[in-house]
C-alpha cells in the first residue's frame, strides 16, 4: 500500500459567481479598446498617452513562452473582455450606495466592507472585475496624511503623484504582460504615505474576478516618502470556470530614504480542476525600488492558487544600505504550474538582500523557483543570502531551482543554499502514532517547512495562510 498518493483537492469554496448587471465592453483588443477604457474612466490626456505608448510597444513584443518552466495553449488576446464593471453610481458618497449584492459577495469572501463588521485595524480596497467598488477607513487614514484609494480616484485626485511615479519602476515596455497591463489596466490601489508617517493600520486590497470572459488587469502603486512605513496585503479569489482567465497585474513600490514597505500576498485564485481544466493564468510583474538610503522593501507571498503562476517580485536596491527581502511559499497541487522567484539588483553600497523560498509540489504539479541576484560594479559590500527549499508530496510532482547569480563587484558576498525534501511515510507515521490525524500531520509538516515565511506575514494573515495551506492539501495524501 502506498501511503503517499495524491487524491483530490478540497472543494474551492470561493468558486461562486455573483449575479450582477455589468457594464461590459466587447471582446477584443485594439487601439480603440485602449481609448474606450480610458474614456470610460474619464481619464486625462496624459493617461491615455501612457496607455497608447504601452499598447504600441506591446504589439511589437512576444509572449515569454520559452524560458519559463510552464506550458499552456496559446492565449487568444482577442477573446478576452478588457473591461467589465458592475453597474453602479459613478460617485459613491458612502458604502450605503454600493450595490448590496457586491457587499454580500465580499462578505461571503470574508471581507466585510460595512463599517461595523470591518476587520479591526485593516483598511480594505475591494476590487471587483475591472473596478474598485469600495475602500474602507479612507477618512481615518487621511487624518494621518495617508492616501489609500482606488487607482481611478488617484488619477483624478492626485495626478501629480501618479504622473511622477507610474511606470517609474516598471516601464511600459518592461515585458509583454507589463506592457499589456499598462495599456488596458482598469483599476487597482494607490497608496501614498508622506514623509515621516507610519501608517497606523494594515492596508489591503482584495481582488475578485467575477466575469467568465474578462481578464483582470490591475495596477498597484505604493509610494513611501522619507522615513515612512507601510504594510500592505493583497488577497485574491475567482469563481470556478472551465475556461482559463488572464490576470496580468503590475505592482510598483517606491521607497525613499529610510522608508519601509512591507508587501504581503495571499494568492488563492481558482487553480483549475484536477485535470488542469480552467483556472487563472497569473502573469504578474511586481517590482520595488529602494530609491533612498537605508530604505527597505520586503515581499512576502503565499501562492496557493492559479493554474499558472509567473511572477518575480523584485527589488532594485539603489540607495546605499538599502535592504530587499523576498519570502515566498508557493504551493502547487494537481496540474498547477508555478514559475516564481525574485530578482535582487544591488546597485548601492552595502545593500543587502535575503531570499527565502519554500516550494511545495503535490499531485502532478510543477513548481520552479527562478531567482536572479545581480551585484553591479558600484555595489561595494553588497550581501545576499538565498535559501531555496523544495518539498515534494507524492511521486508525480516536480520541483526545480533556477538560480542566476551575476556578481560584478569583488567585495560582494553571495550565499545560496538549496534543499529538496519529501514528506516521508516515516514522518507521517511518527505524527500519527502520537494521535495526530493524517491530515493534521501533513499540515503540521508543511507549516513547519514554511515557518520562516509565515512569521514574516502580518499577524492577522499568518493564521489565515496556515489554514489555507491545510485546506489546499486536504486529502492530498491517501
Amino acid at each position, binding site marked *: *500500500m502506498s*501511503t503517499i498518493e495524491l487524491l483530490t483537492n478540497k472543494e474551492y469554496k470561493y468558486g461562486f459567481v455573483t449575479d450582477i448587471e455589468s457594464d461590459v465592453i466587447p471582446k477584443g483588443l485594439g487601439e480603440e479598446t485602449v481609448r474606450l477604457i480610458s474614456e470610460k474612466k474619464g481619464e486625462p490626456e496624459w493617461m491615455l498617452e501612457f496607455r497608447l505608448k504601452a499598447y504600441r510597444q506591446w504589439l511589437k513584443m512576444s509572449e515569454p513562452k520559452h524560458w519559463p518552466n510552464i506550458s499552456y495553449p496559446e492565449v487568444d488576446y482577442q477573446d478576452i473582455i478588457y473591461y467589465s464593471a458592475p453597474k453602479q453610481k459613478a460617485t459613491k458618497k458612502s458604502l450605503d450606495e454600493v450595490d448590496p449584492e457586491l457587499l454580500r459577495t465580499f462578505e461571503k469572501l470574508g471581507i466585510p466592507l460595512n463599517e461595523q463588521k470591518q476587520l479591526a485595524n485593516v483598511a480594505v480596497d475591494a476590487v471587483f472585475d475591472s473596478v474598485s467598488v469600495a475602500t474602507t477607513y479612507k477618512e481615518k487614514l487621511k487624518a494621518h496624511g495617508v492616501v489609500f484609494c482606488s487607482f481611478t480616484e488617484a488619477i483624478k485626485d492626485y495626478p501629480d503623484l501618479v504622473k511622477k511615479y507610474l511606470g517609474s519602476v516598471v516601464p511600459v515596455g518592461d515585458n509583454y504582460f507589463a506592457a499589456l497591463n499598462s495599456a488596458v489596466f482598469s483599476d487597482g490601489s494607490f497608496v501614498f504615505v508622506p514623509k515621516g508617517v507610519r501608517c497606523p493600520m494594515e492596508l489591503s486590497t482584495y481582488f475578485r474576478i467575477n466575469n467568465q470572459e474578462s481578464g483582470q488587469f490591475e495596477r498597484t502603486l505604493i509610494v513611501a516618502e522619507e522615513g515612512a512605513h507601510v504594510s500592505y496585503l493583497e488577497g485574491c479569489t475567482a469563481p470556478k470556470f472551465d475556461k482559463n482567465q488572464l490576470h496580468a497585474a503590475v505592482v510598483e513600490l517606491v521607497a525613499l530614504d529610510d522608508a519601509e514597505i512591507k508587501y504581503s500576498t495571499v494568492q488563492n485564485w481558482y487553480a483549475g480542476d484536477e485535470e488542469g481544466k480552467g483556472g487563472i493564468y497569473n502573469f504578474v510583474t511586481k517590482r520595488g525600488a529602494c530609491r533612498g538610503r537605508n530604505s527597505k522593501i520586503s515581499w512576502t507571498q503565499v501562492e496557493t492558487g492559479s493554474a499558472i503562476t509567473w511572477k518575480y517580485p523584485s527589488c532594485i536596491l539603489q540607495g546605499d544600505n538599502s535592504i530587499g527581502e523576498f519570502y515566498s511559499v508557493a504551493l502547487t497541487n494537481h496540474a498547477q504550474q508555478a514559475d516564481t522567484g525574485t530578482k535582487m539588483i544591488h546597485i548601492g553600497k552595502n545593500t543587502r538582500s535575503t531570499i527565502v523560498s519554500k516550494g511545495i509540489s503535490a499531485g502532478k504539479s510543477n513548481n520552479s523557483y527562478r531567482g536572479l541576484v545581480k551585484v553591479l560594479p558600484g555595489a561595494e559590500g553588497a550581501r545576499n543570502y538565498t535559501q531555496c527549499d523544495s518539498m515534494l508530496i507524492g511521486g508525480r510532482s516536480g520541483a526545480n531551482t533556477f538560480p542566476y547569480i551575476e556578481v560584478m563587484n569583488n567585495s560582494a558576498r553571495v550565499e545560496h543554499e538549496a534543499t529538496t525534501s519529501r514528506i516521508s511515510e516515516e514522518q507521517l507515521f511518527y505524527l*500519527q502514532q502520537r*494521535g*495526530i490525524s493524517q491530515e493534521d500531520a501533513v499540515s503540521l509538516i508543511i507549516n513547519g517547512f514554511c515557518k520562516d515565511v509565515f512569521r514574516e506575514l502580518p499577524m492577522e494573515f499568518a493564521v489565515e495562510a496556515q489554514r489555507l495551506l491545510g485546506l489546499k492539501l486536504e486529502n492530498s495524501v491517501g
Partner: protein
Amino acid sequence: MLEIRDLHATVDGKEILRGINLTISKGEIHAIMGPNGSGKSTLAKILAGHPAYEVTKGEVLFEGRNLFELAPDERAREGVFLAFQYPVEVPGVSNAQFLRLAYNEKRKHLGEEELDPLEFKDLLAERAKVVEMDASLMSRSVNEGFSGGEKKRNEILQMAVLEPKLAVLDETDSGLDIDALRIVSEGVNKLRTPENAVVLVTHYQRLLNYIVPDHVHVLYKGRIVRTGGKELALELEEKGYDWIKEAAAGA
C-alpha cells in the same frame, strides 16, 4: 489488555512474522529479545499500525477490540504508544507545539477540554522532569539536531505526556551511554502504574537491569521460541543466541 493470536505479517511480500502468540496483562512488563532480523521491530511497528507492513493472518485484540480496525492515530488515542528506534525529525515544528497537539488530540478523544499553550507549558515542565529533559529542547524543532540520547529521551518524554496504556519501546536502549540509559530507564519506571503495560524490544540484557521484566520472550525467525522470567535474559547474555537458533532448528 493485549492479546496477539497467530499473527503473520509480511513486508514487501516477505514473511517476517510467522505465528506470534502473546498475551499481556495490565501492570506487566514484557521484554522481547532475539537476534537481528528475528521480527522484533516488525512486531512493534505492526502494533502501532505502520503502513509498510501487511498482516496476512491472525488477530490482535487491545482491550477486547480488534486493533487492525483502527488507524494508527486512533490506536494512539486509544492508548497505544510506540517509542521509535529512530525518532523522526520534523523541521520547523517545535517540540512543545507538537506535544501539545498530540496531547490535546488525546484529550479531545476522551471528551476533555483542550489545554491552551500556557496550561500545557506547566504540564510539560512537570513531565520533563521524568527524563531530566532540558527546557531548551522544548522550543527546538522536533528531534532536529538532537543527539541520539536526546532523541530517545524525547520519546520517553512523549510517553510521559501521553500516558499510554500500552507502551512499546523499540530498542530505546540502543545508542545510549550509561548515564542516558539510566535516565531513560528510570523515566520508564516512574511511569509504571498497575494500570499500564510496557513491552521492551531489545537486543541486550543491560536495559533489563534497570527495567525489570516480568516475562522475557525470545523471537526467532518470526516466532516466539522461548518464554521465561528475567533469568532468561541473563542466560541469553551469557550464552548468546546460537543455542536458541540450534534449538529452533532442531525442533
